[in-house]
């Protein structure tokens, strides 16, 4: 199940076309997947790789920020204006820094604020979903994730990119 902010008339599925688009565009986005649960990390990594994504995983918000170059020691170390990832997908419930807090930090960064952030959660809580979407999350996805969710995410991402 996906909740998303839609620009334009994306809506609905186009079940048969995802593989064609991958082949045609050869688009291999680099995705940073953040989740404190090892099983979920393993699963999301495989789902993303099956959709021809390059994947880096992180087990918490701090590690994610370090990878993105926003770690506490690296405040001024971001060079240039290009982010090394095309998408961040993060679990909401994590100890320490929640996915929402991670989202906020990314959106506050001048270099990274354009990077789409997707939030995942096992809990379907409308106030939580709205809070994330209002803070700029591209999408909110309910766990457990299925291959069809990730394929739809990738199609959405490619449209967003163009």
């Amino acid at each position: 199940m996906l909740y998303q902010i839609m620009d334009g008339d994306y809506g609905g599925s186009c079940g048969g076309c995802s593989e064609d688009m991958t082949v045609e565009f050869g688009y291999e986005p680099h995705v940073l997947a953040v989740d404190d649960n090892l099983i979920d990390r393993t699963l999301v990594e495989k789902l993303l790789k099956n959709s021809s994504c390059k994947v880096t995983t992180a087990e918490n918000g701090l590690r994610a920020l370090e990878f993105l170059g926003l770690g506490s020691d690296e405040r001024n170390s971001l060079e240039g204006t290009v982010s090394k990832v095309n998408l961040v997908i993060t679990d909401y419930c994590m100890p320490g820094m929640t996915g929402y807090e991670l989202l906020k930090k990314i959106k506050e960064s001048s270099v990274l604020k354009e990077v789409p952030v997707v939030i995942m959660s096992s809990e379907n809580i409308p106030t939580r979903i709205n809070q994330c979407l209002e803070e700029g999350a591209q999408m909110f996805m309910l766990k457990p994730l299925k291959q069809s969710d990730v394929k739809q995410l990738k199609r959405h991402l490619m449209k967003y990119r163009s």
Partner: protein
Amino acid sequence: MEVGQMQRRLVDYTKSLFMEGFLDAQFLQLQQLQDESNPDFVVEVVSLFFDDSEKLLNDLTMALDQPNVDFKKVDAHVHQLKGSSSSIGAQRVKNACIAFRSFCEEQNIDATLRCLQQVKQEYYLVKNKLETMLRLEQQIVAAGGSIPMIELGF
């Protein structure tokens, strides 16, 4: 036993796990992720689940054995277990965790202890079933056969 017979036995066994609610459709998602580049994906993820769950069950046992139970901590562990069991399709474990969490919220020590027993029971049941299923698969592959895909048509 010849390969065809083994395959039929596996299909029947796997179907029974779905019928009896041990596994749900999410498990099929796992199986569909297994391919030539990752031929042991299901075994790997299931093994991770076993290790992770056993650790969580130990943590839960200890947490509920304290003189002053920290229900927030207990709930956090159950939330993890609920998440992993849901992600691999271990439906009965997941459902037991859902019940467990509601009693954590009530801070009901007797009920949470009962829930822990229930979750343990469901976990060991599904562990046993999955190990049996994976063993059947191994036997088929060792005999040169392929693992039939299950269609959930019911």
